């Protein structure tokens, strides 16, 4: 399952020829718990401002029932505990993912 608020992200700065060095990866937290998806897994992350407060929230799609968890951006790299994305009063589900 993949979810996407698609965007072309063009960054400023000098050309880097694609080479990149990264810090050690860290697991993102929602509240004080790691962001995780239901069985059978397949987490698909996305950053987008879905509550209109100007900060990009974390959306994570999952395979099970095609549901999407939303983690509100609290600033300073922190996200609140997640809640299921709703559509028309019910938990949103993307068909064709089960």
């Amino acid at each position: 399952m993949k979810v996407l608020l698609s965007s072309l992200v063009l960054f400023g700065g000098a050309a880097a020829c694609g080479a990149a060095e990264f810090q050690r990866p860290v697991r993102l937290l929602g509240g004080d718990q790691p962001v995780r998806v239901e069985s059978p897994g397949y987490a698909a992350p996305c950053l987008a401002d879905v509550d209109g407060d100007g900060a990009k929230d974390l959306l994570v799609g999952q395979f099970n029932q095609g549901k999407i968890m939303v983690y509100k951006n609290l600033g300073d790299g922190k996200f609140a505990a997640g809640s299921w994305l709703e559509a028309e009063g019910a938990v949103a589900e993307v068909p064709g993912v089960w």
Partner: protein
Amino acid sequence: MDIDADGHNDILSGSYSRMSQPMAGLFQVLSGKPDGTFSQAAVLEGTDHEPLIIPATEETIIENICTRPSAVDWDQDGDLDLVVGNFAGSFYTFSGEGQGRFSPKSEQIMTDDGPLKIQGHHSDPFPVDWDQDGDIDLVSGSSEGGVQWAENSASSGEAPALKPFRELIAADPRISYGKPLGEDDLTGPTGSTRVWVDDVNADGKPDLLVGDSVTLTTMGDGLSKEEFEQKQAQWEKDLAKTSEEYNAAAGDQEKLQEYSAKIQKLYAQRAEFIKEDRTGFVWLYLQK
């Protein structure tokens, strides 16, 4: 991304497959509403009012299932196009005609050496100017884990010309099947990676969010480490023996069924001494 150009963010998703035949991983849109909420998912259709589907035959079905779409002005004509991935690990585009309308005809993205493909399966296109040279490259996860990117080498104003994918982040070593694996043992994403690119810490350099899929395993209740290891070793021995018998029975349907049932029983027995928790996490790689 505002797919239909109505001023509200929409959510665009791929899917594994529709339930009806022939199989096809349809694209779905949850349309943003003026009040900030979303509509239920609706199948994304082409200008012919039929679902957008990557063309495939029964033999090439992996080209059109397990899809992931991204919307981007790929051909630089001012309209959003779709760049989509699939189970096979290849990529296709659907040309946009504005306001959420797309041509039903797709085109496969090619390199000089043939179709653009990732290492592994489950292509996962994230269009972004990764090398910051002013054009759109592709970053992708993979069934094998890790993150890959394909450089766009086209000159300004020309159609994208992708080089083959190369490694951006190496896949983690394969985790030994059947060994206990807890959350605290994880040091990074494992398999089936899905990527998102953004400048998370606002330092001018793109960072990566990587989703994954992992099976956490713990010892069954009440077992000591020694008891667990004994049961695991015996189980592996039994499975190897039965698998050997199954392979040796090729052509004998009765025996094949018998050994197949034995293998299924062994997997059921495995649950008596090992617990599995299939899940996935989201990892952040900040660029140095």
